[in-house]
């Protein structure tokens, strides 16, 4: 599959039995965008990220990656997606280097060891590269997990609550890394509750409530807009 520069969500819906998690969502994200998914718990943010990451099939609608639906693209598409989940996707018994080399090889990188070393250097963890991840602080684990998601040079980066549990310095470092990723033209979709941290980082936002889009638009004054959007309720 060739690289894509746009991800389009078209009439997307997902239900679990009789419960609707997402309903008729439509929006587009371009290369270099950092799109924020904002909303209360249970709004459907993680479900949407799972569908974008091809981990979940939609019940209605589709996601197009540069004009191709995920169903047509197959496993190659997953090689262009990087995902950082709320649970970090790291094996605590393995060292940081072993985790990155394992995932690098899983993504078919021929020089996984060298790529992992470079990633650990970038994360500022070269000195702790051979320590088990279980001995790391939350911030250190988060840095390794972000490098794991970026190891294979994805075109679409999906981040679920990436600022949770991070101190101010770690949050600032994450913002710097996101800017670097943005400069490379990666489409980033980020679900978060940390409105103050991401205000000024996001280029677009989608407010979700009860699986429905409440409002979409450029970022800025997020806290006030969030409050107003949640009071107004979903748009038909």
């Amino acid at each position: 599959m060739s690289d894509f520069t746009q991800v389009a969500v078209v009439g997307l819906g997902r239900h679990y039995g009789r419960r609707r998690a997402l309903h008729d969502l439509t929006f587009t994200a371009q290369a270099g965008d950092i799109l924020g998914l904002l909303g209360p718990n249970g709004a459907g943010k993680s479900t949407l990220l799972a569908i974008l990451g091809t981990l979940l099939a939609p019940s209605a609608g589709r996601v197009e990656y540069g004009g191709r639906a995920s169903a047509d693209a197959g496993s190659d598409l997953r090689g262009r997606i990087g995902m950082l989940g709320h649970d970090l996707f790291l094996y605590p018994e393995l060292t940081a280097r072993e985790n990155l080399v394992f995932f690098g090889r899983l993504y078919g990188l021929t020089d996984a060891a060298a790529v992992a070393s470079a990633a650990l250097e970038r994360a500022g963890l070269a000195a702790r590269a051979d320590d088990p991840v279980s001995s790391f602080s939350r911030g250190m684990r988060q840095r390794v997990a972000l490098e794991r998601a970026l190891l294979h040079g994805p075109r679409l980066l999906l981040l679920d609550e990436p600022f949770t549990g991070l101190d101010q310095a770690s949050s600032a470092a994450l913002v710097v890394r996101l800017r670097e990723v943005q400069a490379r033209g990666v489409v980033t979709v980020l679900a978060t509750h940390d409105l103050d941290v991401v205000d000024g980082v996001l280029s677009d936002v989608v407010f979700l409530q009860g699986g429905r889009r409440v409002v979409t638009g450029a970022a800025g004054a997020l806290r006030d807009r969030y409050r107003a959007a949640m009071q107004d309720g979903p748009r038909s």
Partner: protein
Amino acid sequence: MTAFLRVAALVVRKDLTVEVRSLEVVATTLFFAVTVVLIFAFGFVREGLAVEGVAAAILWITVAFSGTLALGRTFERERQADTLRALLLAPADRPAIYAGKLAGMLLLMALVEAVLVPLIGLLFQAPILAAPLRLAALLAAGTLGFAAIGTLFAAMLVRARSRDVLLPVLLYPMTVPVMIAGVRGTAALFQAEPDLDLAQFWTALLVFFDAVFVTLALWTFEPLMTD
């Protein structure tokens, strides 16, 4: 095919590395299996003599119980940091992930059975050396059938809240044919005069079950994990 095997081998190697570091699953499964056999020995061995014909059933009951424990613990590890999702995100054939997890389970259960079989031979006077290759083939075929379905169900249930209850409830009815064939085949080998033809019949039946279960699991793994 090469990519499929490469990914499966990577998953097995990763599982073995993690297990060597923690020894969690091997230690708990072995301890549990030995305990089950000892409890049966207290019930079925009188004055050094075992009740006739119970060894085969005890062997397979222990394999099923300890296998269920190992399946639960192995996938609990993938659940804790949601790493199963990370595996499913990789641009590899998703059935290769299943194959890797299955191979890891088979290695673990082979290790447990290597301890279990001599112990049952010792405590229940079972003639485990009468036809060792046929016994090994029967165990391998039965374990593959059990683990093939078990690995699929354990992966499916990894995000379910009541997974610990649901796994045996789903797994045991589905693997009844494997258990029947395993017990009858092993009983044929544990007779005073081993019935090799009968054992071969049950082994062949187990190979048939294996082919069906592995094919079904490889076919359904991706849709089951994404719906």
